[in-house]
Each structure stands twice: as structure tokens, then as C-alpha cells.
């Protein structure tokens, strides 16, 4: 006797399709319930009227959004010059920490101290110390600019983290690759440059993407030492209009950038995990 086949599907496929329909239905129902609860319950809270007026004011949003976008250009600018500096410094520190040559021992110590110090201090503190401290030396313009020293604070902090990620990438390259390259007559330097680093860097691209996303957000910390970037601009509007809506606008601008970037990093991670298997 043959099993009856609906629309050319096997019994197993029919069963799995039914299961999928069931799961989708359950997910949709539970989501609808939660959303409905929020829509119905939140406006019933005593403070909702006030919150809505001060955080979700449509007119304020429309009025301030273009200016916020403008201010966001400053974030982008600081990001754009900091990111390459972080990548280069981070890589140099990773290499310094892994150096075996005795002549370069001081470099190794320096690298270790650097990562310990800058990973151990909250970013905002580093921004304050460097951003206020160095211009306080009474440097002439433009060397007293908070843009320079604020960026430097970000660069130093992030380079410390990025260096550790590069090191884990270097570790992830199997030592047999090194043996093979050495056996061909390459020098230690050439092995690192042409065989180990290209593989190491590729292995840590997703992890470094996450650092870039974090950096994009932390650029706002520079607002505490002067630059009128998006967070500061939103603060100015808040004081001016006595309304918090500009902060919501700023948050939305951040999300427009960070959500696709985060999705992309996750996608790269998943792809790499698949390749490893």
C-alpha cells in the first residue's frame, strides 16, 4: 500500500509544514497580545499624558530633527578619523605584546601596561582626564581643541580593546601555518605579515564590527568636554524647548545607523561559524 501524498509532499514534509503553521500562529498571537497590552495599559498610567507631551511631541520632533541630523555629522566625522587610528594603533599594540625579540621587551611591557590601563578606566573618565587635562597645559590653538584630545581619549581606549581582539585572532591561526611558512624559508616577520595576520584579521572582522558600533555610540561622550555633537545638540533643544522629544529623535538617528550595522555583524558571525564547521 502506498502512502497518500498531498501536493507531492511526503508525510514528513506535511507534518513539518503543519508544525510550522502552528508555531507561526502561536508567535503571532502572543506578540499581538503583548502589543495590545502595552497600547491599552500604558496610556492608563497616571503620568502618561505628561510623558507623551514631553517625550513624544510630534511638532517638536519635526522642528528639531533636521538640526539633530546636522549635529550627527560631527559624530560621523569624529568616528571617521578615530576608527582608522584605532585599527592601526590596536594592531601595533597586539604585535608589540606578542613580540619575542628581547630587544623589543620594553615594547611588550608597554603594550601590556597600555591595555591594562585603558581597559581598566571608564571611557568617560579617560575623556575627562585627557580632554580637560591636556588642553589645560595652555597649548595654543588649534592644539587646545577638545576634538583632538577627546578623539585621542577614544582612540586610546578603543585601541586597547581592539588590540586584545587582534591578539585572539592571531592565536586562532594554527601554529602549523607558522611551521609551514618557516619551512619555506620565510623570516619570522614575513610569516607574521603574509601568513598569520591576513588570516587573523579575517577571523576577527565580526568582533571588530561590534567595536565600531560601540565606538559610534561612545563618540557622544565627547559632548561632556565641548563638541556640540548630536547628544549635546539634543540637550540644547531640551533646555530651549523644555521638552525631551529631541532625545528621542537622537536615539532614532543612532538606531538608523546601528541596527543595520549590528545585523550585518551578526550575519558575518553566523557565516563564519558555519564556515568553521
Amino acid at each position, binding site marked *: 500500500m502506498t502512502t497518500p501524498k498531498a501536493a507531492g509532499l511526503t508525510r514528513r514534509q506535511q507534518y513539518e509544514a503543519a508544525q510550522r503553521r502552528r508555531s507561526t500562529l502561536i508567535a503571532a498571537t502572543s506578540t499581538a497580545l503583548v502589543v495590545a497590552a502595552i497600547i491599552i495599559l500604558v496610556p492608563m498610567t497616571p503620568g502618561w499624558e505628561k510623558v507623551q507631551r514631553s517625550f513624544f511631541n510630534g511638532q517638536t520632533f519635526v522642528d528639531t530633527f533636521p538640526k539633530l541630523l546636522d549635529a550627527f555629522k560631527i559624530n560621523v566625522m569624529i568616528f571617521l578619523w578615530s576608527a582608522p587610528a584605532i585599527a592601526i594603533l590596536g594592531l601595533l599594540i597586539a604585535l608589540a605584546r606578542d613580540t619575542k625579540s628581547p630587544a623589543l621587551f620594553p615594547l611588550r611591557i608597554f603594550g601590556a601596561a597600555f591595555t591594562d590601563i585603558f581597559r581598566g578606566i571608564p571611557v568617560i573618565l579617560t575623556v575627562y582626564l585627557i580632554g580637560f587635562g591636556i588642553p589645560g597645559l595652555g597649548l595654543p590653538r588649534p592644539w587646545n581643541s577638545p576634538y583632538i584630545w577627546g578623539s585621542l581619549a577614544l582612540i586610546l581606549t578603543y585601541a586597547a580593546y581592539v588590540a586584545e581582539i587582534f591578539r585572539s585572532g592571531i592565536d586562532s591561526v594554527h601554529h602549523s601555518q607558522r611551521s*609551514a611558512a618557516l619551512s*619555506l*624559508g620565510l623570516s619570522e616577520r614575513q610569516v607574521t605579515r603574509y*601568513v598569520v595576520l591576513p588570516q587573523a584579521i579575517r577571523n576577527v572582522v565580526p568582533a571588530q564590527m561590534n567595536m565600531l558600533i560601540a565606538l559610534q555610540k561612545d563618540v557622544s561622550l565627547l559632548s561632556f568636554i565641548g563638541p556640540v555633537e548630536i547628544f549635546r545638540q539634543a540637550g540644547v533643544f531640551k533646555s530651549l524647548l523644555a521638552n525631551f522629544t529631541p532625545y528621542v529623535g537622537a536615539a532614532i538617528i543612532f538606531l538608523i545607523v546601528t541596527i543595520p550595522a549590528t545585523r550585518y555583524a551578526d550575519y558575518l558571525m553566523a557565516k563564519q561559524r558555519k564556515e568553521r564547521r
Partner: protein
Amino acid sequence: MAKLALRGVVKRFGDATVCDGIDLDVEEGQMVCLIGASGGGKSTLLRCINLLEVIEDGEIRLDGEDITVPGLDPQTVRSRIGMVFQSYNLFPHMTALENALLAPRLVKGQNSESDRQEIEGLFVRFGLADRMGNYPDQLSGGQQQRVAIVRALAMRPDVMLFDEITSALDPQLVGEVLDVLLQLKAEGMTMILATHEMEFARQAADKVCFLKDGKIIEEGPPSTLFTAPREADTQAFLARAIK
């Protein structure tokens, strides 16, 4: 004068003596096979010859010149001795051809069109002409191992070391790699193989050395070593290895 001569080579890892006074002569154009149970020190001995391990005592002479003198630049020695590994160890971020071009370019500055053609010729010679542009993960195990051999040959070495190069291969791919070795032997390459392929060693080797616990227990031409081993250890090993 032997092409390669080892005298009293000692290598320790901590307390473990992995090479325990090895003497070995390899004549120009000879194929020498190292056999022995796992952990006997075959890989370590090959790595010592290629200066990937620093020996504690003894000396290794290549064309009469001691290559284990402390302070000697290992790079020049290694570029004269090629090595192929069990796990291929191709560089995964480069194509097969780029794998082979890298060392000649970096170490010898061979960058010209004719250098390139010469190396492409090696791919053709070993049946890899249509695989030069592939990345290692697009190649079968046998192809990868042949590319690894070509990569080592591209440096025009005097001596080639092979460390169980067929052990990671599916049985049906072993033949194509062993054929390459026969081809090299016919061309007069001096070779040392660590191998578990007893039948191949019996047919192709000029000399077979049985290693156990870091010592060469017995050595001789395959005709005598395989048919009439003197030492009890050799007899026991061969009884297990050849069924």
C-alpha cells in the same frame, strides 16, 4: 660525502628525550624512509633537520656544512630543505598558485614572468594545471597535498622532507600523492619520508630506518629490513604493521 649526515642528534622536550643520539646518512638522490610506532620521534627528527626544532646535542651536515651551529641563520638552510606536512598546511587565504609563488618571491626575490612560468610548470607536471587558481578549500585532500609538494619544490630545494603526507588522505587518494614521490625519485631528488605506507617503503625506498623511543633501532635496504629484520622490536613492529 653524504648529502645529509646526522651525528648524535639529541632533542628533548622537558624531561622527555625524543631524539636520543640519532646517526643517519642520506646520499644524494636517495629515498630514506623512517618507520616506527606513533611517538617514536619521526616527525620531531624531520623538524630538527629543517631547524624548526633546535637540537640539544649532535650535528646535522648538509653538503658537509654543519647547519646546527648556534647563531647560523635558519632561513638560508630552510630554503634549501623543503618540507611537506601531514595536514597539508596550505595558506587558506591564497590560491594554489599564490601559495607556491609566495616564498620564492619573498625569500629569493623571484618576481619575474619567467620565474612564474617555471612554477606554473610544476603545477602542470603534477597534474594540477587546472587547479592553480583554486583556493585550498576548493581542492580535494590529494590535490591539496600535491599543491603543498609543489609549493615546497618551488623553492628548488636540495632535500625534501615528507612527514606522513598520505596519513590524512582517503585511501583512494593516496596513490596520486605517492606517484608524485616516485616521479621525484626518478628525477634524483634526495628525500626523507616518515611513513606508515609499508608497501610503498618496501618498493621505493633505498634505505629504511626503524625508530623507537628516539633511537634508530635498525636500518638497512628494504629487501633485508622487511624480510629479515634482526631486532626483536623491528620484528614485533613489522608483524603488527604488515598484516
